[in-house]
């Protein structure tokens, strides 16, 4: 059973610090990295995979630096990058066979594994089709298939569900849950529901730092007393929506039920409710998304 230890990892690109002094210990289980775009999740995962070298700090697998383990470490890895790479002229089967060869899967076993992965991801019927004809969802499924080819003990998935429809997303979640025993699975996403039900531990990343870490229960407990519900009239709901972070709006007759995330009671009559992971996300990343929205508006 591998154990990954990240010790004061920092990555700096020119003037920008993408990952700032992150220390973690990862053992068996599913870890969900949540954070807004630009939080440093992808950079951190790239360092764990050995694609990028940390500016400072070190990553150890079972006590040995991953650079020293070299191929032995990469044998344990399954990686799905955010920008999934493929050769457009390869068929799905040829592509998986190629990656199996590069992953040092013995040739007789590789054929078996390729078929197994194609079945698991529902691509058996398309195995002879060229990848350039695949839809976004099919590409993502192919990406998941290649990540699982070598039966990895450390599975790293960066935004694995982008482009998947709800049915495929549920199927993916079930696959991950079924694989979680005896492995380290690291999932990076900004879609809360992707990790809410399957992650053993949630790690919230903001501006290159881990700002919160714990089980879903622990993380949501920290937001106790910061989520409120209030039944408002249409005009009042508009005003509250502009003033506070609203995680949900639901019409109830001629009134609107608002779910507000706020440190203080937003208005008389608002009642505190149990926070969910989405509320926690909104609590931490509201200003970031506002900033991104502002930038997007400016560029438009």
């Amino acid at each position: 059973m591998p154990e990954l230890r990240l010790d004061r990892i920092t990555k700096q690109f020119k003037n920008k610090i993408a990952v700032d002094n992150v220390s973690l210990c990862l053992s068996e289980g599913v870890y969900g990295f949540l954070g807004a775009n630009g939080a440093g999740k992808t950079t951190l995962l790239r360092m764990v995979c050995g694609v990028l070298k940390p500016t400072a700090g070190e990553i150890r697998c079972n006590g040995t630096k991953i650079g020293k383990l070299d191929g032995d470490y990469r044998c344990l890895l399954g990686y799905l990058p955010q920008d999934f790479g493929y050769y457009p002229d390869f068929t799905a089967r040829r592509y998986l066979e190629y990656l199996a060869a590069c992953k040092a899967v013995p040739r007789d076993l590789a054929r078996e594994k390729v078929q197994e992965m194609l079945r698991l991801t529902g691509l058996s019927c398309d195995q002879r089709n060229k990848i350039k004809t695949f839809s976004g969802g099919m590409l993502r499924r192919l990406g998941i298939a290649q990540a699982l080819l070598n039966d990895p003990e450390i599975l790293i998935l960066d935004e694995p569900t982008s482009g998947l429809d709800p049915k495929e997303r549920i199927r993916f979640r079930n696959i991950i849950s079924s694989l979680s025993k005896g492995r380290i699975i690291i999932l990076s996403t900004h879609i809360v529901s992707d990790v809410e039900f399957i992650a053993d531990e949630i790690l919230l990343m903001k501006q290159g730092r881990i700002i919160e870490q714990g089980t879903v229960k622990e993380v949501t407990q920290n937001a106790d007393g910061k989520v409120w519900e209030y039944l408002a009239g249409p005009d009042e709901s508009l005003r509250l929506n502009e003033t506070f972070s609203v995680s949900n709006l639901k019409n109830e007759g001629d009134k609107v039920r608002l779910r507000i995330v706020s440190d203080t009671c937003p208005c008389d009559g608002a009642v505190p409710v149990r926070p969910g992971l989405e509320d926690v996300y909104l609590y931490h990343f509201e200003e970031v998304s506002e900033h991104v929205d502002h930038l997007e508006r400016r560029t438009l």
Partner: protein
Amino acid sequence: MDGYRFPLDERKKAQCLSAIRLEASHKRIRHAPAFRELIWDQLRFYSWKHWVLQGALLLAAMLLSLILRRRQADDFHTLAACSVFLVFAGNICLSHVGNLFSFHMAELEQTLYLNLKQMVCIRMLEAGIADLALLALFLATTGGSPSKIGTSLIYMLVPFLWSDVLYLHMLTSLRSTSSAFRSFALGLLCGALAIFPLYWEFLYQSEYLFLWQGLAAAGLFMLFAEINRLICRIEEGDSMCLN
């Protein structure tokens, strides 16, 4: 008494064997492929287009040199034709190194057992072997005494080495350019580079041999420098592995 055997309980034996098989199947057996297996694994995934193109190029070069001989053209023209073909063959071989960096594959390949750096080295080695074989064939085509073969070798090596240097330099420096545009521009440039000396026929006279030798030595040095640069950049990761 010697022949006495305890009767075997076949049912228990089968149970034990299946338990052993189950345990064995759970063991992760690490496979460390031999070097020749790694080379073959890269070769077998080259597209058929690559082999067809290389074959066609070789055939065309042989036919052209045959025609030139029949027409009793001088060695200079045969040599120039072989140089151009060798440059194109070299570029086709190197394009397989370039392919590793296209379509966002570099990042993924860097995380595999056989990582990007190793793949680049293997493909370069394969390209080098193929180029050497072609070079030997072309030299055999031009024929002549050993000293003449040595001179022909240098004449053919110079455009070949410098076009490879150019290819590798563009590969590391023009990462943002589309690979199709890069390959096209490079094909034109290298072709021009190989044809270039044809316009100055006097350069093939023996008194200018020192110039060719100097260019060959510089080309060899630059080729190693470019390979080193490429590998260092892959190790850093930032510029070569991310698209």
